[in-house]
């Protein structure tokens, strides 16, 4: 059990170290999300409701996440490094878990900028929104990591990842927006928790089949 945890820690640390050194992904995500929020300001006619603005925040988050996810296996892909990881005697699901932790962290970093920017540009945040974002991050990272591995096997991986991801992201947006604006956010937050649990387990269990033949 602790061997598994050690594998996951080593893999997650590897991803964080790589990002720290190359600084590819997180700066791009930060810039993207702030640009998106700026565009949204111009896209919304004046007098738009706070609810519409909140909805757009969630769109920004989903597409920023997509940007980050396309980079998720970039290092491994460019040098066929996934082979090296798959050959190791560790459980392949540890690769998924380590990578998911990394992606979640990158998302959180992007949101540490995006959420204050949103509060600045539009209107103040509620704690429910922040909680919903946190829950959504986990779910997005979980399925995104798995789907990135699926897309990596195809000829048109940059196109395929968004296509595979967006339908699955719809419930997340429903849950997130609902939690942000509803009178009773509890049920929406609970729903996000359920989504996370169900899809994380499914992704964890099926990663093995997606990276091996």
């Amino acid at each position: 059990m602790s061997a598994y945890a050690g594998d996951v820690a080593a893999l997650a640390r590897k991803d964080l170290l790589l990002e720290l050194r190359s600084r590819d992904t997180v700066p791009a995500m930060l810039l993207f999300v702030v640009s998106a929020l700026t565009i949204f300001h111009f896209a919304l006619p004046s007098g738009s409701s706070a609810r519409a603005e909140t909805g757009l925040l969630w769109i920004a988050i989903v597409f920023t996440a997509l940007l980050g996810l396309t980079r998720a296996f970039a290092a491994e892909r460019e040098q066929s490094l996934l082979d090296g990881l798959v050959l190791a005697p560790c459980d392949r699901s540890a690769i998924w878990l380590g990578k998911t932790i990394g992606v979640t962290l990158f998302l959180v970093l992007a949101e540490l900028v995006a959420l204050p920017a949103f509060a600045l540009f539009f209107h103040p945040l509620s704690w429910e929104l922040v909680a919903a974002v946190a829950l959504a991050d986990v779910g997005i990272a979980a399925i995104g990591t798995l789907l990135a591995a699926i897309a990596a096997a195809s000829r048109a991986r940059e196109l395929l990842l968004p296509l595979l991801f967006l339908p699955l992201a719809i419930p997340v947006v429903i849950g997130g927006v609902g939690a942000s604006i509803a009178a009773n956010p509890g049920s929406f937050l609970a729903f996000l928790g359920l989504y996370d649990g169900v899809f994380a387990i499914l992704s964890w269990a099926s990663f093995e089949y997606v990276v091996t033949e």
Partner: protein
Amino acid sequence: MLAFYWAPEDADQGFSQKIFYIHVPIALTAYAGFGWGAWKALRLLWTGERRYDLESYTAVHIGVIFGLLTLVTGSIWAKISWGHWWTWGERQLVLFLILFLFYSSYFMLRYSTEPGPRRQRNSAVYALFGVVLIPVSFLAVRIAGTILHPTIFTHEGADLPWQMLVCFLVSLGGMLALAGTLYQVELAGKRADGSLRELRELLA
């Protein structure tokens, strides 16, 4: 078979109700297709036997055809009932839109990956995601209805007089039989294609 399909037309409850006998069985058959596809996908991952890939793919394909029909009949029903071709308040329709998008991506996945063990496994995993998405989306659309897009129409009460129930079940049976036949036909066709290709390779 088609006789079963047309029998509900006799139920003289008004045209919008007649659509109900077609629309809902079609929807349920689509679910059955996706569920069957997911089951075959699971078998593929468990046993690794190649034939399950074809069976899973065919089942999903049938599911998508019926899903499309669900959207079409649902749209017709919406037009007749409320005068719009589309409404976000109709939960079933929204759910099927999500599923339709999802399974269309399934086909993009198959199309853009080279045939082989990787494509089989990736498709199988995605099919499993799909079947899990069904209840999750159902729940999502339901809670969305409470806040975001108020549900305009609620289905009439659960007690159907027994004549309607019988007609409904007959229609459902007919739909499932139709789907099952299409499934077998398509599967046989694909298998024949595959055998032909293998034969050609052996001779080459």
